[in-house]
């Protein structure tokens, strides 16, 4: 086996040194009744060639671009990743390093994460960002737990236009805590109904997603003004951070915490993971934040360097009193994101955001002209909801045969939204493909 370097000689010499007569003998101290008797029943080893064929066959069954035209976003977006960014993220000095607990030999990861924190804070318009969470859903759950810690209250409110899967993860995290989650309905224009907030007591945090699950931009300034109590934190969540290249950032709209999914920033979709949980907050809340933080300092010679810091919040120091149990995070995804953001630059980021917006507007217009209803009137970014006629399910199935995936049916998540589909267009969606889609679905 090519990963196991020991020759028979090596094994014999080493066994002799430790005065044990066989490899099995190394385990003689384990009680007999704890020992496994039968061999592992898993497939025999494959050669690398056989493995390639096997994996190729599995991968070939997946419906992906360019063979398939996938008009689906809903928390996982098709964006072009520059060759330089994926090359850099594949550098084995980054890929095969451990968590940078030993800063003298980890300055590369540490500076890159510091840069990720900085660009993330700038993108989200807040003062401090952590080194990453697992994904958008766990970032939201941790944000709401943090809002409870900061406010010392026991209830949070969450918009029903927050990604349904994020809300389910939040519910899982909250189940054993005794804290309450209240849901805010959505209005006919596709934004959150803030009205019920005024009657809610003991509210520690309010979570609004913008762009929300329907693709609509929320009225965040109004949300800020609707907070019932000055101790209530406004948590702005997102699944498409590219939108802040065009629209105001969460911080500019008054967020206390901004959190969400950063997969859009140079990370392949890979069936939903690994993604990148992004998390930023106002500096006054830093000691209540979950997750690792990299800070700047100097070495013995006074040279600038970086270290993991404020670890007294974390599980390996505080144990049961930590702000979170997170240890391994999504560091390499954060690196991929900073490499992507650096490749785009501020100018490129804005231009790319605008192009996403214009592509989606083009598709929206084409569908509207073709006579389909766009039920929500609010401005959107790169995805939006369309209401199709009653028999559209059949058309949708027919399109699959033609290798077109015409968005995501919303009825599975919102039973009242029958015949409503969430469609997405990014910079990777060609005008010709959008024209073809519209042509196909005109009754």
């Amino acid at each position, binding site marked *: 086996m090519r990963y196991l370097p020991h020759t028979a000689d090596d094994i014999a010499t080493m066994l002799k040194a430790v005065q044990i007569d066989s490899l099995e003998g190394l385990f003689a101290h384990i009680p007999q009744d*704890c020992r496994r008797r039968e061999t592992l029943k898993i497939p025999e080893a494959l050669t690398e060639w056989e493995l*390639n064929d096997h994996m190729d066959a599995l991968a070939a069954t997946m419906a992906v671009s360019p063979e398939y035209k996938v008009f689906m976003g809903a928390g996982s977006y098709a964006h*072009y990743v520059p060759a330089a960014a994926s090359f850099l993220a594949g550098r084995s000095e980054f890929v095969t390093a451990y968590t940078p607990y030993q800063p*003298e030999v980890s300055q590369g990861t540490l500076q890159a994460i510091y840069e990720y924190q900085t660009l993330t804070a700038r993108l989200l318009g807040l003062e401090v960002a952590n080194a990453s969470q697992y994904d958008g859903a766990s970032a939201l759950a941790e944000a709401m737990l943090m809002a409870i810690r900061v406010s010392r209250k026991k209830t949070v409110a969450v918009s029903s236009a927050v990604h349904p899967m994020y809300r389910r993860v939040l519910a899982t995290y909250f189940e054993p805590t005794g804290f309450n989650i209240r849901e805010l309905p959505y209005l006919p224009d596709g934004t959150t109904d803030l009205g019920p907030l005024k009657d809610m007591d003991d509210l520690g945090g309010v979570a609004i997603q913008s762009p929300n699950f329907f693709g609509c931009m929320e009225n965040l300034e109004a949300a800020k003004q609707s907070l019932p109590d000055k101790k209530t934190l406004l948590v702005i969540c997102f699944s498409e951070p590219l939108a802040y290249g065009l629209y105001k950032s969460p911080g500019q709209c008054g967020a206390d915490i901004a959190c969400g999914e950063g997969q859009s920033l140079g990370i392949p979709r890979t069936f939903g993971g690994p*993604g990148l949980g992004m998390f930023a907050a106002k500096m006054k809340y830093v000691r209540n934040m979950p997750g690792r933080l990299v800070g700047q300092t100097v070495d013995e010679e006074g040279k600038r360097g970086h270290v993991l810091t404020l670890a007294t919040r974390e599980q390996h120091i505080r144990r049961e009193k930590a702000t979170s149990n997170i240890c*391994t995070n999504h560091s390499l995804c954060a690196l991929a994101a900073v490499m992507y953001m650096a490749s785009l630059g501020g100018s490129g980021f804005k231009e790319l955001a605008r192009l996403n917006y214009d592509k989606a507007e083009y598709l929206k217009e084409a569908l509207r002209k073709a006579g389909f209803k766009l039920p929500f009137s609010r401005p959107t970014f790169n995805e939006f909801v369309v209401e199709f006629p009653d028999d559209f399910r059949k058309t949708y199935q027919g399109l699959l045969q033609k290798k077109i995936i015409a968005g995501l049916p919303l009825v599975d998540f919102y039973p009242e939204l029958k015949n409503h589909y969430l469609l997405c267009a990014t910079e990777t969606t060609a005008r010709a493909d959008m024209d073809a889609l519209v042509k196909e679905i005109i009754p």
Partner: protein
Amino acid sequence: MKEILGTTGLIFNEPLLWEKGKKGRSGFSLPRRDVEKHPVDKQLGGPGPDFPDLSEVEVVRHFIRLSQWNFSVDSGMYPLGSCTMKYNPKTNERQAARSGFAQAHPLLPQHLSQGTLKLMYDLEQYLNEITGMDATSLQPAAGAHGELTGMLLFYAYHKSQGAPRSKIIVPDTAHGTNPASAALCGYRSVPVKSNERGVLSPQAVGDIMDTDTAGIMVTNPNTLGLFEENIKAISEIVHAKGGLVYGDGANMNAIMGIVNMGELGIDVLHLNLHKTFSSPHGGGGPGAGPVCVRKHLEPFLPVPRVIKQKERYALSEDFPETIGKIHAFYGNVGVMIRSYSYILSMGPEDLKKASQLAVLNAAYIKDQLKGTFHLPYDRPCMHECVFSDKLQEPYKVTTLDIVKRLMDYGFHPPTIYFPLVVPGAIMIEPTETESKEDIDLFIESMQAIAKEAKENPELLHAAPRKTKRRRLDETAAARKPCLTG
């Protein structure tokens, strides 16, 4: 001793990203604009982020230079205890990068995502077999996330029995994530001390186990590198009071094909795919923390679950007692692909052999360094061994000095000051992928450092000297946090 590994070369300085570049540069080829511009809502529009503008060359040099300041498994031995920094096979990266996997949208219709679903289903079966458990969820994104899932399973189970419990037993040798994960589920940790042999005694557990205690969290082999030999008796005590046993599988690399975790009385076990199953650690993740359970806890596993109906694979939500979702989609599929590829490359014999050689490497190091460094528990070890700095105390040299000096010799430091039960702990886990020559060089380097400690301790106090940076001022970093530039 052969030539030591550590040296200095031409390493570049490199400023922070925003100290480089000029407005108007770009490192991105923007797709051709084939649609018209559409007006943007004035009230909602924003200025966009203040990022530096850099050319592709600047971006590439920047991150390549940073990469050269890192130690990595691909450059040298990384004997971090309890972290299992084994070699990460390159074929796994190739498999995960296939466009069918990497570009797949998670909400594709199921008949158009059969390959990935089959891979997930099969991986669950392999992990069931390797652990001796009955069912697996691949959804948790990391070890601590797996622990949280495990604690949620405990909570759901006790609730289904009609009585939620409030406490959990956590040994003093446990990872910090254990009590933190339990606390997220509202459990109060009750510590239990390991005995003079470095393991848990049934009596110590029996003394505190009661009907308000949800169960116990055990790491086996434990963080001293010792097999918890009383685990069966402990499980019986906990089960007799209606409790459950949680196994932290961080150290599974010692026992693949050798111990059946399911037979030890463990009810829930998490694995770290980024440790035992060779997916790279990525400088702190992403990993994956699958949770394996015995039959009686299967109904509570996270949804959706991958099921097989005839020869088709599907995602099913039809598990009414589930704890719910723990990840937005299905977990870190990219990591699963790498570990699946690893298991298929190894096969049953070599997986077992990997554990045997991991233990052999650790036993050999323990034997060769015994006497040079203090060995608090001189007993047969598993895949890691724990020394301390006690013998170096007279020279005013600490564990920190020793491992910082080890950097100059070209090795990554072991895990230090953990487990907490050993003052000044030096916890060494070589893994099976290090050759005898590399292990010997590591041993010789440690011996040379012990000699230096005696003869010229200043060398250790001033270490490291060959790294990009000397020792960093962590106190200043925490006192006046500078977290963004």
